[in-house]
């Protein structure tokens, strides 16, 4: 290993040691279910805001969007706007959900319905499915990234990395619970913001703080006239094929819809609503998250355009065709400009460690959310009829973290050579089609009932999975020039019927439709009193689960 890589490795180890120490402390101070699932509800608004931002800003957005902007120009920016605007919907829902629930989305959904076990089971299935898909995407990315940073190559190195990342993540959750996981998120968010601010400041300084100059230099370096125009990356226009062009455009609108509606239904975001003492702190935390996420995505513009201007598209694409290494290459070039090769190595090692922290934090947030759901909702409320011993339920939660973590590791190792970036967008689409209709209708529709929740969740989730299975993502997509397969399955197999890669445009309305039809078609009558009770609780915070003294 070169000196730079040794330094990178050293920083990884330092981050792991610090976070493991925190995990042990969290283990020692976790006494009951409230501590394990919600960190004792003792986090302040700003702390939880940092953790929310930490949970949300995945490596896909740090490295992925910077790379997207570097390679496809302006269109990468469209992604980040969707990711940010979505938080307004979260801001409107966060207080109601904090007031109405205890630990999970299922708590909110099952409050007013008559058939709680069915509703809880549906919520658990959707939570675990969304989390596992998102987890696999993150872990495959982790395998590629970490082996690249440490200069390892080949399938075995990737597999080993995935296993190590998986083991650390399981340890964080099973031992530290929500308390440990939240502190990991907070540290990661601070590291990520620091890293991005440093890189942005260096890029701006290179160009004399003139934004127009950066853009001009990037456009010049890209050698394309349309680099700063919409259409460079998404919704491509195919000359002479108006149908294909329209499908491409609808596909992009579909993605935009899923991004903006999915965030409020992501399990690892929802489970963070309950870690604060009351609804006001929850609102403060979302406001903090909006500020952090917004500033972060604005800075990714500087990173992306800066990478194109200073590193060059050819070198970025040579290192990784999807541009995931753009931010890292930029860090090296910027560091080199300051202090020669040593400076380059230093900055690269630091940004690499930030990326590593980002991956570990996001995956542990996802495992935390799904094991909470399995233990609290499925074991506690479905199997034990809502009367488990608290210590027993927490033990099941720790075990669930192990099971979910192992499942994700196995899937990620199997899929380590695939390009699974589409799974991130799919997770957002599933959250928007399965979870959002149930949440919104539970809070605002008087007549909504158990059958409606169940139909909406399964309908939305099923539609998403089916449409993706029948889409060009899974089969039948080939490169028009080389004829090489671009789908998950090898080129010979083609059963794609659905033309779009993003199911949201169809599956989100379908989820709402199922929830509505399910309600109307069942003979079950909504419980008016419980609906009124939920309305009062959610808006006033009466009887909400407060911080235990």
């Amino acid at each position: 290993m070169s000196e730079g890589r040794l330094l990178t490795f050293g920083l990884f180890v330092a981050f792991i040691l610090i976070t493991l120490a925190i995990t042990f402390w969290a283990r020692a101070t976790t006494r009951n279910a409230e501590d394990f699932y919600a960190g004792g509800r003792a986090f302040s608004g700003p702390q939880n805001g940092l953790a929310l931002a930490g949970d949300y800003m995945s490596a896909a957005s740090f490295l992925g969007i910077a790379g997207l902007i570097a390679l496809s120009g302006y269109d990468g920016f469209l992604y980040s706007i969707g990711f940010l605007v979505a938080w307004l919907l979260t801001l409107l829902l966060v207080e109601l959900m904090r007031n109405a629930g205890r630990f999970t989305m299922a708590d909110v959904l099952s409050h007013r319905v008559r058939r709680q076990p069915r509703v809880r089971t549906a919520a658990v299935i959707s939570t675990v499915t969304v989390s596992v898909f998102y987890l696999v995407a993150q872990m495959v990315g982790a395998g590629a990234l970490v082996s690249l940073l440490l200069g390892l190559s080949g399938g075995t190195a990737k597999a080993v990395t995935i296993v190590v990342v998986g083991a650390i993540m399981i340890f964080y959750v099973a031992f530290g619970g929500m308390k440990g996981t939240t502190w990991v998120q907070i540290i990661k968010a601070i590291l990520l913001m620091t890293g991005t601010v440093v890189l942005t400041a260096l890029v701006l300084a290179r160009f004399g703080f003139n934004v127009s100059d950066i853009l001009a230099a990037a456009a010049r370096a890209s050698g394309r006239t349309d680099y700063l125009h919409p259409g460079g990356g998404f919704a491509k226009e195919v000359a002479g094929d108006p149908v294909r062009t329209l499908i491409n455009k609808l596909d992009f609108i579909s993605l935009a819809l899923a991004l903006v509606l999915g965030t409020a239904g992501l399990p690892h975001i929802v489970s963070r609503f309950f870690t604060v003492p009351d609804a006001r702190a929850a609102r403060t935390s979302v406001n903090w998250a909006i500020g952090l996420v917004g500033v972060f995505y604005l800075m990714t513009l500087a990173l992306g355009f800066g990478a194109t201007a200073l590193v060059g598209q050819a070198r970025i694409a040579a290192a990784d065709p999807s541009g995931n290494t753009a931010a890292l290459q930029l860090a090296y070039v910027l560091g080199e400009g300051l202090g020669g090769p040593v400076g380059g190595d230093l900055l690269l090692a630091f940004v690499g460690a930030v990326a590593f922290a980002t991956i570990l934090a996001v995956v542990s947030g996802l495992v935390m959310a799904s094991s909470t759901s399995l233990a609290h909702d499925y074991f506690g409320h479905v199997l034990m009829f809502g009367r488990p011993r608290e210590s027993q339920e927490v033990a099941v939660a720790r075990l669930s973290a192990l099971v979910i973590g192992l499942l994700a590791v196995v899937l990620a190792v199997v899929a380590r050579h695939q390009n699974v970036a589409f799974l991130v967008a799919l997770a957002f689409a599933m959250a928007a089609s399965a979870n959002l209709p149930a949440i919104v209708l539970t809070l605002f529709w008087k007549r909504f009932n158990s059958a409606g929740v169940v139909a909406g969740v399964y309908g939305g989730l099923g539609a998403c999975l089916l449409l993706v299975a029948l889409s060009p993502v899974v089969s039948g997509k080939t490169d028009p020039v080389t004829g090489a397969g671009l789908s998950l399955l090898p080129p010979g197999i083609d059963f794609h019927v659905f033309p779009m890669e993003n199911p949201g445009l169809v599956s989100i309305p379908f989820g709402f439709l199922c929830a509505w039809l399910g309600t109307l078609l069942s003979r079950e009558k909504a419980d008016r009193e419980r609906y009124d009770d939920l309305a009062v609780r959610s808006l006033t915070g009466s009887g909400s689960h407060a911080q235990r003294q």
Partner: protein
Amino acid sequence: MGSTPSYAGLAQDRRFRLLKTRFRRLALGIVVSFLSWYFLYILLSVFARDLMSRPLAGTVNVALLLGVLQFVSTFALAWRYTRYARRMLDPLSRQLREEAERQQAETERIEQIMAQRRRIEAWTPAPRRARHRRTSGGVR
């Protein structure tokens, strides 16, 4: 879950209805404005590329400006929501919550007294007391 108290009684309260109307009007306004503005921007990016590519100042074009404005509008709407909630929703919801919790405490107190009374009655069952009285009456 069966033993958790119900606050449904407050749903008909005039102040609660006001709170609900205010929240729903605010939430609807924000959802409609940010979704329509966001999708206007997306649709322009997809279908009106010539307009979006028009340069404004140096290399900054309409698309980049509108994109940055999406950030600005998100911050502004979040700020507006928070300000309105602090002024128009929080005081009302605090008042209702305190009242609900007072009522709840009162109900619990009454239930406790009733339970105590039932317990006392169960310790000295009526029939035996009657029998005792009867026998003591017989002695007298």
